[in-house]
């Protein structure tokens, strides 16, 4: 329905992060369009130096991620037949690069590893398309300790009932992991 109504544009890359106990969450790297970046920077740049200091980062986080917290920061993680609710955002960093607001953060979805494979499907997309997220899943990566056995590939989400509200070109990251 809302396929063509973007007001904000973001290029996103992701890394699936694991530790010894299992899946930790998704590292998100978001680069926003210059217009939105300028608007958000202006709202937080107290010293007016065009950069985001450590003191200014929290208000950037509130302005950008606050309104989308209820939507899981547009990180959708499916295990079995359900979307997981996130435990929140960690390691938030914000910077300006070439006039573009760049955010790095981990959206945590702890899933313990078992002796058998756990299948996980991941997508980063705004189903309302207020933010047009272009997530490059082809170049998504995995960070995991050697003890964790992880396979992954990217493909479109067509045919997955849970993702039917998403635009057809949205790519998903398919993962399976075990101890």
């Amino acid at each position, binding site marked *: *329905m*809302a*396929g*063509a*109504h*973007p*007001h*904000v*544009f973001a290029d996103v890359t992701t890394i699936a992060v694991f530790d010894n106990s299992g899946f930790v969450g998704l590292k998100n790297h978001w680069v926003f*369009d*210059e*217009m*939105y970046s*300028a*608007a*958000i920077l*202006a*709202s*937080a*740049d107290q010293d007016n130096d065009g950069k985001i200091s450590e003191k200014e980062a929290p208000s950037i986080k*509130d*302005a950008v991620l606050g*309104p989308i917290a*209820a*939507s*899981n920061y*547009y990180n*959708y993680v499916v295990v079995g037949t359900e*979307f*997981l*609710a*996130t435990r929140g955002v960690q390691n938030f960093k914000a910077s300006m690069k070439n*006039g573009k607001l760049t955010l790095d953060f981990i959206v945590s979805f702890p899933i313990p590893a078992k002796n058998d494979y756990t299948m996980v499907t991941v997508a980063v997309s*705004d*189903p*309302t*398309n207020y933010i*047009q997220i*272009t997530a490059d899943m*082809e170049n998504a990566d*995995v960070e*995991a300790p*050697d003890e*964790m*056995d*992880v*396979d*992954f*590939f*990217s*493909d*479109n989400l*067509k045919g997955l009932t849970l993702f039917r*509200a998403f*635009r*057809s*070109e*949205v*790519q998903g990251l*398919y993962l399976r992991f075990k101890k």
Partner: protein
Amino acid sequence: MKKALVILLVLLVAVAADAAVKKKRFDVGTVSDTVTTTVETPVVAPSEAPKSNFLSVISEAQKTLREKLTSAIAAMKSGEWGAIWKFLFICLVYGMLHALGPGHGKSIVVGYFIARRGRWRQGVALGAGITVTHTLSAVLLLFILYAIFKATVFPAFETGRMGIEKASYILIMLTGLLLVAIAIHDFWKQHKNASSAESPESLPRTAHWREIIGVAAITGIVPCPAVALIVLFCLLNSMVALALLGAFVICIGMTITNVAFGIAAVAFRKGIDFGGRRSRFASIIYNAVTLAGGLLIFTSGLLLFGNLFAGRV
């Protein structure tokens, strides 16, 4: 045995090809040799290219246009005022494409003129009224908040927009319900008078300017964030006149799109009325169409409202 192995391999390759993916591998470690072979067999089944539909194409186009707008504004900032024509042209096209997206009143315009017999100029007026309100409310809200918050205005603007959006969508649903109720009421009245001779009153209801202004107001009142962002970007670069000029031209672009839908809807209803005129079932046709128009508006409001909560987990 050898044959069986070949069949097995073919099967595995077929399964892998069916998945049609580029399989990347992390930590092969514990996996047995057979499986490794299948996975690393260069399965050249091309990864199915995601189909891009019409809406995705115009979304992508808007992304490109926004980048061009940004660079045009930057060029003017550095004194190259020749870029203004490029800027204005992009604003116009951006507006036209932007209004093709949901939430700009196309289905409301169409629904209304299916529910009501309208004149051409009423079709134009409703289409334009919605986009002018949509733009003006964005510019006004932004300027008012800018006076208070200065450069830090944008989060406040977004909060305001989200509130107005909810109210607007609820009012759109109510408008749809009202049109449906009127259609049912008319139908009921005619049914009761069915014994008496067919009265000329069974002609479909006509559009009223009062209604048109109301529909334009409740639909258009949602401030357009696309306009707001462009206006704010100009303001942050201390180009107030350019901000207003840009908003004006985007508004013209959006109006072109919406008016096209308005004219099409008026024509559609005229066609139905013309076709149904001589029919024995004229009044039933009129009522059914009116009902459909009302339902279309209600559904649009419902979808827009529902979309506010899409993606909640």
